Structures are given as structure tokens and as C-alpha cells.
């Protein structure tokens, strides 16, 4: 059996360690594997490792490797391969974009042929999550072969051919350690236009298309939706004149009819964020929090109490990068205008937007971002948005920053979980952000496809089946 998959962009390279590139991941996730894997529900399980790692000390994690695994070119997978893979990713000369995930890793050393110790620069409780992202390469091929266009991994699929611009074909790896996958051949096609992807699906050319818009769920033969990694949120500038007032910030949160937006904008394919913008699947998510209610009257009252009726605020955002980003921004701006704020919407060009989001200038009153959490650990949100020194942070709450710093190095799982819960409660009470939705990823499929997509947005062909 063979299927055709339409993805939004062609891999820029097949080197699995250099780029942070959606197209590359969609392909390489099937060719390469990491030491750890996740179940479709998000639970970390052993991958190329034989078991979950063991923490030897604050800075060292030990992985036992699966025995008898070979690369597609026949080379054995062993500790040397792991050491080489780690060394290659973190080599500054390679300037890997994936360093965002692996910044804490100091190195790896082989203990024996099937045991590896990975060391970190500081205590890093989420190292296992990080290792889920690190694809293991074959050192010999990486050194001498053309790794950028010839992929050699351990995964269930092997690269058959790649005609750049046209298509990329994977075939099943009959020798896969986990057993040969069901689908024999998968052809990727690269279609950037959502409309064109959709028409290909409807014309029967594609079996799977990514990033389907919610509206089209009624039009396609079959689809599957799953809670994704992205959470949309407005980061509020707490040092600004208007938004510095906690009453105003609360009003901002209460003014939005999130349910209406879910129903109309997302046709139900989104969850209202539960009081924070941490991904619900992530470690550290505070389940105790509840989502903000829609209470415009209370919002108006709060504004009145703060004496901020008609106060000017500027809402900053961009357009076209995330699902329905502009729609969300404009809808929210409209809600805020409704409770009596004088809202200016500023949709910025992306580089300008980046500067607004992460630059050193004054913080915007409210800036939109769809935050993505690939490591599924609350640390990402904590250090990026909540921590006062975070790149996208808009508060100057030193107390909270200290709490985050403490949690980051806490290796006791229970304690860490509790600390994160506390931080979230704190931020929730002070309305530092206006969390909106946990977005769902929707995939369009042909009728013969059977597949439950994963919440980490990985497109694993081995998990698909074709009914015929």
C-alpha cells in the first residue's frame, strides 16, 4: 500500500540536526528516531533507549540502549552513535537551530557499547523531554556521506528518492526493530497553499493533508483533530500606564467571549485555555485553575473602578503565521473595545513584530503570540513569558522570577509540579496574560485512511493504516 501526503513546505534539508523546519521534521520523524519516544497521548516512553533514563546525579543522566538496532545502511546503533549525535548537534560550528532545545546539554560519553551518560551544564529536570527531540544519526554517514540529501536513520521508513521540488518517497523498513510498518510507501508532496492542498485532497490525489482549516472539516472526506502544541495568548504589559492596573488586566480577561470565538472561529476545534497559557499536556500544568468567565458587565465595572473607561490601549500582532492569528487579534480587540477601551490594533510586519515581542524597547500593552511547547514542559512558558528576564516577558515581577528559577533546577518531580502550580496561580491572580485557546491540529484524510494524529504534531506514518 502506498499513500500520498501533502505538507506545507518542502524540507530544506534532510539533515535532522541542523534546522528547526516543519517540512524536514515531517519527513525525518519517520526516518530517524530519538532515544525516547512519546505515546500518541504524550507519555514519554523508551525509543532507541531500552528504558527511561536514570538520573545519576544532578548533572548526569544514564541511558541504556536497545540492542540489535541497525541503521538503514547496516551500521549498528550503539553508544558511539549516540555520543556522535549529541556532539554533532551541540557543536557550535554547526550552528544548529535546534540548540533552542539542547542548550543545556554539555556532552555525552559512552560507558559501554549500550550505555551512554549525558551530562548537562546545570540541573535539568526536563532532559528526557529534550532527548525526545534529538534524532540519532549514523556517525559514519554523517562524516562521509551526503547527510543533507540522503537520510540514514533507524526508523520504520527509509528514504527512497527525493526529487527536489517534486516529491519525496519513503519506503517501509522491513528490518525495523519494532516490526515492519503497515504502509509500504509514502510519497510526500509539497503544497504551500491551503486551498490547493484541500483541492488535492478532494480530487483524491492526497491521503493526508496537514493544517486543515476548521471550516473545511465539513467539506473533506475525512478528518481528524487533536489538541496541538500551540496556545494563543496576549501578553500584557504590566508596567504600562493602563495595563499596569491589575483591575484593567482582569477586565481584559473577563471581556472576551471565548466560547463564542471557539464556536465561530474554530468551529469548536479549540479548547479554551484554563487560566494560563501552559499547554495542558505539558508537565507542570496546573489543573486546578479554571478558565476566565465571560462577564462584560463585571469587566466594565472593573474599568470604572480603576477609572480607566475609554483608556487607550494598543494591541500588537502579526498576520499569517499562526492559524487564524489575525482573526483572533481583531476579534479580541473588538471585545475590548466593547467594554469601553479605546483600542488600536497594530498588525505588524513580522520582523517589526519580532522586535515588539522580544526587543529591548518598551513593552506593548498587549501582544499576541501563539506559544508552542515542543518539550511539553511548563519551563518553556515560564522562562519565555513569565520570567521577568524572559525574551517575551512583559512583567517585572522579581518574586515570580525567583520561583521560576528555583523550579527550573528542581529535580524532584513532585516538588517541581507543585512549584509550577503555584507560579501559575500567582500569574493568574495578577492577570499577567490573557490566555485564549489551546488550538487543535486538524488533518484532512482520504476515506481509506485510518489514523489518530498525535498531539505533538508529528506525522508518524507507522501509526497510520489504510483500509481497502
Amino acid at each position: 500500500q502506498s499513500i500520498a501526503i501533502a505538507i506545507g513546505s518542502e524540507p530544506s534539508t534532510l539533515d535532522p540536526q541542523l534546522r528547526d523546519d516543519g517540512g524536514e521534521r515531517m519527513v525525518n520523524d519517520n526516518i530517524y528516531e530519538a532515544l525516547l519516544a512519546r505515546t500518541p497521548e504524550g507519555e514519554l516512553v523508551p525509543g532507541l533507549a531500552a528504558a527511561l533514563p536514570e538520573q545519576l546525579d544532578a548533572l548526569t543522566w544514564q541511558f541504556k540502549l536497545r540492542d540489535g538496532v541497525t541503521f538503514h545502511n547496516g551500521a549498528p546503533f550503539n553508544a558511539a552513535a549516540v555520543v556522535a549525535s549529541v556532539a554533532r548537534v551541540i557543536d557550535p560550528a554547526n550552528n544548529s537551530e535546534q540548540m533552542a532545545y539542547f542548550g543545556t546539554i554539555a556532552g555525552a560519553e559512552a560507558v559501554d557499547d549500550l550505555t551512554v551518560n549525558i551530562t548537562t551544564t546545570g540541573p535539568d529536570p526536563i532532559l528526557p523531554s529534550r532527548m525526545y527531540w534529538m534524532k540519532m544519526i549514523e556517525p559514519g554517514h554523517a562524516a562521509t556521506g551526503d547527510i543533507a540529501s540522503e537520510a540514514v536513520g533507524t526508523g520504520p521508513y527509509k528514504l527512497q528518492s527525493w526529487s527536489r521540488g517534486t516529491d519525496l518517497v519513503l519506503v517501509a523498513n522491513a528490518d525495523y526493530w519494532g516490526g515492519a510498518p503497515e504502509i509500504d510507501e509514502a510519497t510526500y508532496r509539497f503544497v504551500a497553499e491551503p486551498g490547493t492542498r484541500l483541492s488535492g485532497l478532494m480530487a483524491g490525489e492526497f491521503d493526508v493533508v496537514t493544517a486543515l482549516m476548521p471550516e473545511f472539516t465539513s467539506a473533506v472526506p475525512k478528518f481528524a483533530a487533536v489538541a496541538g502544541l500551540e496556545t494563543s495568548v496576549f501578553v500584557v504589559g504590566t508596567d504600562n500606564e493602563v495595563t499596569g492596573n491589575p483591575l484593567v488586566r482582569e477586565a481584559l480577561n473577563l471581556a472576551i467571549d471565548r466560547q463564542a470565538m471557539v464556536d465561530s472561529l474554530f468551529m469548536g476545534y479549540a479548547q479554551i485555555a484554563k487560566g494560563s497559557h501552559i499547554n495542558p499536556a505539558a508537565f507542570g500544568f496546573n489543573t486546578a485553575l479554571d478558565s476566565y468567565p465571560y462577564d462584560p458587565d463585571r469587566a466594565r465595572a472593573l474599568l470604572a473602578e480603576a477609572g480607566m473607561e475609554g483608556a487607550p490601549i494598543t494591541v500588537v500582532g502579526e498576520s499569517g503565521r499562526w492559524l487564524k492569528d489575525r482573526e483572533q487579534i481583531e476579534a479580541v480587540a473588538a471585545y475590548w473595545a466593547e467594554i469601553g477601551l479605546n483600542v488600536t490594533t497594530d498588525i505588524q510586519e513580522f520582523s517589526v513584530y519580532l522586535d515588539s515581542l522580544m526587543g529591548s524597547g518598551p513593552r506593548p500593552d498587549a501582544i499576541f503570540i501563539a506559544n508552542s511547547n515542543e518539550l511539553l514542559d511548563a519551563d518553556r512558558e515560564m522562562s519565555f513569558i513569565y520570567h521577568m528576564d524572559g525574551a517575551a516577558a512583559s512583567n517585572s515581577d522579581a518574586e515570580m522570577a525567583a520561583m521560576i528559577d528555583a523550579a527550573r533546577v528542581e529535580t524532584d518531580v513532585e516538588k517541581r509540579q507543585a512549584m509550577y502550580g503555584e507560579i501559575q496561580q500567582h500569574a493568574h491572580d495578577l492577570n499577567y496574560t490573557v490566555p485564549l485557546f489551546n488550538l487543535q491540529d486538524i488533518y484532512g484524510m482520504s476515506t481509506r485512511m485510518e489514523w489518530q494524529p498525535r498531539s505533538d504534531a508529528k506525522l508518524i506514518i507507522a501509526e497510520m493504516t489504510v483500509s481497502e
Partner: protein
Amino acid sequence: MLDFILRRLLQGVLVVFGVTTAVFLATRTFGDPVALMLPLSATAEQRAAFAAQLGLDQPLPTQFARFCWDILTLNFGDSTWQRRAAVDVVFERLPFSLMLISAGLGVAIILSVPLGAIAALRPGGVVDRLTTSVGLLGLAMPQFWVGLMAIMVFAVWLKWLPTSGAGSVWHLVLPAATMALAPLARFTMMVRANMIEELNKPYVKTARAKGLSLPRILRIHTLRNILVPFISIAGWEFITALSGYTVVIETVFAWPGLGNTAVQAIKRGDLFLMQAIVFIIAGLIVVISILLDIIAKSVDPRIELN
């Protein structure tokens, strides 16, 4: 002849250099390349390291000197997006663009000549009015609209042709047809107008006085005479298409041409790729216009190359 080619090539080199320099100045003086090229979450150290690696931290004149040297040695650096030599990326996509353009313009050329000629034979007649109206309509429809509609009709409903992508001749049909539409209209009208003008020339009277039939005059006499303006229009159309005006079609049909790559390069702030694209396309344009002049000369012996 050789003298002409040499002179034009030299001129061309200057033009190409001017064009590429314009890109250099535009990208270095107005924007921050580093911010564009690195991911959202990159740290300040990463940014600085990256800038240093690309030589972007040097003062502008130094950068420019390095840039000039690179151009001279035809070294455009690595595409930051694809992590390989920028020229490789360009030469990989260029054939797709050329294929699309040639197919589209080829169709337009082949169809427009008879259509325009027939229209010119009876100006104001049924064929004339029909071609003119259809032509004007063809000119009025935005390409992306035509493309989307074509996909709907021919690929989704009728399932005659693939919706998108490249790979076989069939993949080429819809994009090429969409691409052909506007040039077809322009060519047809141009052939018609020039044909009418040509038919008014004294030598046509001579030909008629010689007892030649109108179709024969058209075929033997006037057709050749409209060839020169036709070549220049077709060449112009080719150049325009090459300079990226196919990008809309490429987007709609997911055609892996250079236009799309250029958009990506711009969106991702891939300076080196951008420079390579501009350089190579400008060079191609120069070469093509020289070729056009030579072809025109071979058709019309009166033309002097200078």
C-alpha cells in the same frame, strides 16, 4: 557581430552588477538581516555569533568590499534557509521556472499567430470581435483567480488533471495554461494590430497587384514582417515572466519554480539566496535580450546591431 555580443555582454555585466548592488544596499541598510534569519527564540549570543559568522558585524564598506569580491568570484555564499550553496538552490529551481514559462509562452505563441491573423483579415468581423472580447477578458482576470478556478474545474470536478505539483507533463498543463492566458491575449492583439498595420503597407498592395491571394500574402509576406515586433514582445514577456511574475501561479499550483523560492528567500531574509537569485536572473535577462537582438537581426536583415 562578435564585437556586438562582447559589447552587450560588457554592458550586461555592469547592469547585473548594478542590480545586485541595489539588493545589497537595500537589505543591509534598511533591515536587520540577523533578526530575519534566526528563529524567534534565538538568544542575543546566538545572534551575535551568527552575525559574526556571516560577516554582518563588520562596517558596511568592508561588507561591500567582501560582497564585490564574492560577486567577482561568483561565490554567493550558503543559503541560510537551505544550508547549502545558494547557487545550487537557484539552479535547481530555475529549470522548473523555465519549463513553466516556455510551455506557457509556447502555447500562447502557437495559438496567437493564427488567431490574430484571422482576426486581422476581417477586422470587425465575428472572429475579430470574439478574439478581442475573449482576449480582453483574459487580460482582466487575475491569474490566481484563474488558477484556483482551473483547479476546481479540471482537477477537482472533472479529475482530468492533477491539482498541483510537478513531476509529469500532466502536472504542467494547468499552470502552463494559466500562465499562457494573459500573454495569449496580448500576443493575439499584437499580431492583429501589427497585421492590420502591415496589410496597409505599400508592399502589400504590390503583392496584391502581383495577383497573390490574401491568405498567401498573409502567410508569405506579412507574417515574416510582424515577426520582429513579435519576437521583441515575446522576449519581453519571457523576461517579465522570468523576473518573477510567475510566482502567483507557482504558489497556486505548488509549482517548485524560482518565484516561490524567491518569496521564501525574502520572507526568511535569506540574503545570500536573494542575491544569487537576483544576480542569476538579471544575467539571464541580459543574455536573453542579446539573443533576441541576434534573432531579430537574422529575421530582418535591415537591423543593425549596435
